């Protein structure tokens, strides 16, 4: 009822936003509360939890809690930027392909299919090898990996909406295609397009972590949840918290994003045509 924020009224929306707020607070306020520097060696490597280091130390003897508090910003920032860019690229391609009834559609979609054929990690490694390591390359690379899947969903949703009366009315008014797409089509395809935003966000974290694991991503000693998991992975039996704590943060973040995404998609979907009304109008 209260317009755009009504998704907060649903349990999953409220819980999702609650979780997200907590994780974002940890990531962005955390650095100011950290007891140690994330790069400082404060004790023996892989020691267990103690008063000095509540979550123990990592494989170099750095404080896991401090690295955890510092390590959220770059994960969230990278994944957010990559997911946003992926949606921008994917939506643009999908909208153009789904709306055009010319050769543009097959040309775009076959290009997308070729992109889908690349193993994501290999693509990213080649890209990094070719252009050097940087945050920008990471963001663009991950976005390019995610975009094809998004564009396929957007294309199908666009084709479905494009034949509806309100879109045709706009076409008959002679409105320009970008105006028709932005005013009439985009608001009505958001529900199916946004359901898996959480999933894609998670996937982008995963890719960042994997690339790190191969030593080509963000370089240590910078702190990052994904980097933490990969660098402490083999020592999990010595200080399990050094792996489980960052993994839990990523998991909680994912759950928060997914719950919120679901709730938004559902609240967008509610004003959709009820399916029961479709039978009457086949004549």
């Amino acid at each position: 009822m209260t317009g755009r924020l009504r998704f907060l009224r649903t349990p999953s929306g409220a819980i999702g936003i609650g979780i997200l707020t907590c994780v974002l607070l940890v990531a962005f306020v955390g650095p100011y509360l950290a007891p140690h520097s994330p790069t400082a060696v404060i004790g023996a490597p892989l020691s267990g939890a103690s008063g000095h280091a509540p979550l123990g130390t990592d494989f170099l003897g750095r404080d896991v809690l401090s690295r955890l508090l510092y390590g959220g910003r770059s994960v969230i920032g990278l994944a957010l930027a990559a997911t946003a860019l992926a949606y921008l690229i994917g939506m643009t391609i999908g909208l153009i392909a789904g709306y055009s009834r010319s050769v543009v559609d097959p040309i775009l979609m076959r290009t997308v299919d070729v992109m889908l054929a690349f193993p994501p990690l290999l693509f990213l490694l080649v890209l990094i090898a070719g252009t050097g390591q940087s945050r920008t390359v990471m963001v663009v690379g991950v976005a390019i990996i995610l975009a094809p899947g998004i564009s396929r969903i957007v294309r199908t949703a666009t084709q479905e909406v494009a034949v509806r009366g309100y879109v045709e009315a706009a076409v008959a008014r002679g409105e320009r295609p970008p105006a028709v797409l932005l005013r009439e089509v985009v608001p009505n395809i958001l529900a199916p397009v946004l359901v898996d935003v959480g999933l894609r966000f998670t996937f982008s974290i995963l890719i960042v972590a994997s690339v790190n694991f191969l030593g080509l991503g963000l370089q240590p000693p910078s702190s990052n949840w994904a980097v933490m998991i990969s660098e402490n992975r083999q020592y999990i039996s010595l200080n399990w918290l050094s792996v489980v704590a960052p993994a839990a943060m990523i998991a909680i973040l994912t759950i928060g994003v997914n719950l919120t995404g679901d709730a938004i998609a559902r609240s967008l979907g509610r004003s959709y045509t009820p399916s029961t009304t479709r039978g009457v109008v086949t004549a």
Partner: protein
Amino acid sequence: MNAASVPTTSAASPAISVQSLCLALATGETVVDDVSFEVPRGEILGVVGESGSGKSTVALALLGYTKPGIVVRHGSIDVGGERILGRDPREVRRLRGKVVSYVPQDPGGALNPSLRIGATILDVLRAHRTSPLDDDAVPSALGRVELDGHFAQRYPHQLSGGQQQRVVIATATVCGPPVAVLDEPTTGLDVLTQDRILRELKRLREEEQMAMVFVSHDLAVIARMADRVLVMYAGRVLEHGPAEEVIDHPRHPYTQALVAAIPDVHAPRTLRGIPGVSVGVGEWPEGCAFAPRCRHQVESCHRALPELVFARPDHSVRCFRWEDVAGAERVPAGTRSEIEASASDDLLTVTHLEACYRRGRAEQTAVHDVSFTIGRGQCVALVGESGSGKSTIGRCIVGLHHPSGGVIAFDSRPLAAAARARPLEQRRRIQIVFQNPYQSLNPRQRIGSAIERPLRVLRRLSHDDAEREVGGLLERVRLPAGVAKRFPSELSGGERQRVAVARALAAQPDLLICDEITSSLDVSVQAAVLELLQDLRRDLHLSMLFITHNLGVVASVADTVLVMERGSLCETGAVDEVLSAPTNAYTRSLLQAAPSLTEAAVAG
């Protein structure tokens, strides 16, 4: 009549007996209140009412099923000698298909798309037969609905809507149940297909002595099928009696209003919609629920609920004033309102129009060599069954479909194929209203901004000027100005269609194309929308192209009619002449198939 000729029938054991049935939402609101009726073997009971009258809820209850959230408060239902209510759900499930079967409105949704037709029919047979099945069980089931045996090998999507509905009827009757419940079985089918299905059902009734409950919002269809009619409104029975009695001499003002709303090919006249909207569950007023919309209301109607009283031994009515009302005119006398049109001055000229659709590599002709003109102020109806290409012509005129040949000239100037290639003035002067009210408005835009858009794009008004005009446009289509702040999901189908008309009028068009705009609306709402269009035509000197498959509607709104068959015009002429003396065989078959109140007795 029929019942008397069947020896097994006795007054003591009707095929269906419903006694004081009362259904309610789990939250307490009553959905169906005190409904009682009996149907003897071999008879058809027609249940008629607007959307939300509870007719489908009653129909489903006969199968021992209620929609989630609805509970049975009290009452009894006996079908085929079996008690339905208060029985173990598993036992009731066994009765479905064997004792009572169901034919829903949307056959496409009723058939499993991944099962062949034969498998669907076998499923029902296996569920109810104990003895081994004959090899010809499926072909003979299909044969009963006049489908060839090879249909068993097909999938539902390979069938037309009418064939799908026949398959559903075949599965519903394959175990020979004594009772069938049909919920709007022909709504959404075109007249010719509807005609075939109705014939099929009547034949099954004769041959198998089935008792049927036939639910519909269209009294003309009911008139053709039913022996007795039950008129429902807001969950209550308002009138119940023999079909001819109820339709020829309706006693309740609501029945009278329903009759007045039905367009009739054989008796063209001005239609009159029922003012207001049908009340929903939980909104029932004190006293008679129809009183607020009733022409004959008096104060007492609002205070107490009238009892169902017998006007004749077999004809009951729920109205305080039925004796006064019954004397009043049955159908308002008004004949078709003539609107002056200057047919000599052509506004739109279509010459040798050709259009096709591409399916992969193949091209399919949709429109072939169609020529016609629309004069200023004239209303031309374009008639034909689904797939005849009539909508494609409308889409070519507004520039949504590119013709493959021919010329469309507007005001003596040829129109470009694509809307965007046309000058602003041409785009403004031709407007279209689409068929599906649920898809013609953007669900994410408020009604106000939907109507503002053509004002800004086509008439170049400023935002403030456009906003000021919205109220007046809504008033034109008889909607309160407050609607501007609402979203489409908050409006009924009829209200949405009015908004779509207002959006078209915003451009101040000269030509309005109406593409099946009433085909998904209740008849009472349809009458109100048609009434509105007639008024607009008169006040604004609009020319109209009215695309429809309903000849009754044509008879009440159009001056000239074009009949289309498979992409070509097969007959054109003045409405009176074409409808009274059709020269073309296809036009004649369309006319014969059109359900009509006056011809009900003949057609049956």
